[in-house]
């Protein structure tokens, strides 16, 4: 930044996806395992961003359109960084990975693929995901992989806000009217079967000790804060059985195909187009 800006608007100096792309162009290459891990992180953020973007123009008030749109853009930023970094293992760009992979090649969790439902269900999904993601990123900042740590450090401040947004709405809907309480409870019940998948360890996590965060370690702090929030919101932790999920493999919920069709159609109809 040069000169004095009258409005004092500055972009700040956090790590951007473009910085990572530059390092990749300069020769940074990562292992298949690290790339696979970065894909999981990036795909969760990407698919949830795509889901949340639907709310723009459809939320209860324009202020909420903006709040959810803002959260979606934050997540898209995380996805861009993680996918750019992952792509260095295969010589692919963030766009190659976002627009040209097919459904079985995605590594998103079932939770982020779940439909938006009503506003309460979206808030329930946000509550679960942002509590999980906050615990995840707050440990990923200590990763032995400096790039993953730097992406997490930037993203953590954003997720802190996503978490607050979800908690505030959970309190208001849960402890609001009879109808808002009913909807919030129903929303929690419908996303709950997909919670366990977020906290499952597997061989990739074992191989990446020191680099990856062990998902199972996040469960206790997640449960503690969630119970506290739900208690204050006069709600209970759902007693719903876990669903069969894809465990970060090639199997996905029936929703992902539709999400990708919408997300990828323009890029695929006009390959290489820029604007």
């Amino acid at each position, binding site marked *: 930044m040069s000169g004095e800006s009258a409005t*004092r608007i500055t972009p700040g100096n956090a790590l951007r996806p473009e910085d990572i792309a530059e390092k990749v162009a300069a020769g940074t290459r990562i292992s298949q395992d690290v790339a696979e891990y970065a894909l999981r992180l990036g795909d969760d953020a990407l698919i949830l961003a795509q889901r949340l973007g639907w709310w723009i123009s459809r939320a209860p008030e*324009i*202020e909420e359109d903006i*709040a959810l749109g803002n959260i979606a853009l934050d997540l898209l930023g995380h996805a861009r960084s993680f996918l750019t970094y992952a792509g260095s293992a295969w010589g692919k760009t963030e766009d190659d990975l976002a627009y040209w992979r097919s459904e079985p090649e995605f590594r998103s969790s079932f939770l982020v693929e779940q439909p938006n439902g009503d506003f309460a269900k979206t808030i329930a999904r946000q509550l679960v995901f942002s509590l999980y993601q906050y615990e995840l990123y707050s440990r990923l900042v200590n990763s032995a992989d400096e790039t993953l740590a730097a992406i997490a450090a930037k993203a953590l401040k954003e997720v802190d806000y996503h978490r607050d947004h979800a908690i505030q709405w959970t309190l208001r809907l849960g402890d609001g009217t009879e109808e*808002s309480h009913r909807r919030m409870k129903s929303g929690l019940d419908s996303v709950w079967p997909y919670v366990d998948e977020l906290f499952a360890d597997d061989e990739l996590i074992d191989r990446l000790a020191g680099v990856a965060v062990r998902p199972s370690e996040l469960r206790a702090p997640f449960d503690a804060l969630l119970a506290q929030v739900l208690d204050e919101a006069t709600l209970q932790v759902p007693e719903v059985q876990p669903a069969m999920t894809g465990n970060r493999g090639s199997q996905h919920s029936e929703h992902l195909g539709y999400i990708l069709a919408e997300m990828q159609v323009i890029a695929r109809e006009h390959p290489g187009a820029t604007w």
Partner: protein
Amino acid sequence: MATAAKTPVTEAGQSANRGSWPLWEVFVRSARGLSHVHAGSLHAPDAEMAVRNARDLYTRRNEGVSLWVVPASAIVASDPDAKGAFFESPQGKDYRHAMYYKKSEGVKHL
């Protein structure tokens, strides 16, 4: 904001109807040492959400270090039709400005 909004400020959860969220006026302090400056207004169900909405609407490009939100209904505004009585009567009264006065001889340190 010429007139104060008549919408009552509701407690959390009480505004069941769509479109019944009260109006809030937003003030942003852009840097330490400067005053909060009126930035605009927004709707929110209560004060806590108003501060959050203000953050999303008015500080997403590093514009601020502090935010105030005030229920629009709490602001009492001057009447735009009373411009003459309120704001035009000082016209021609130059003696209300320091520059009207000449420096007296022999007065030091002015």
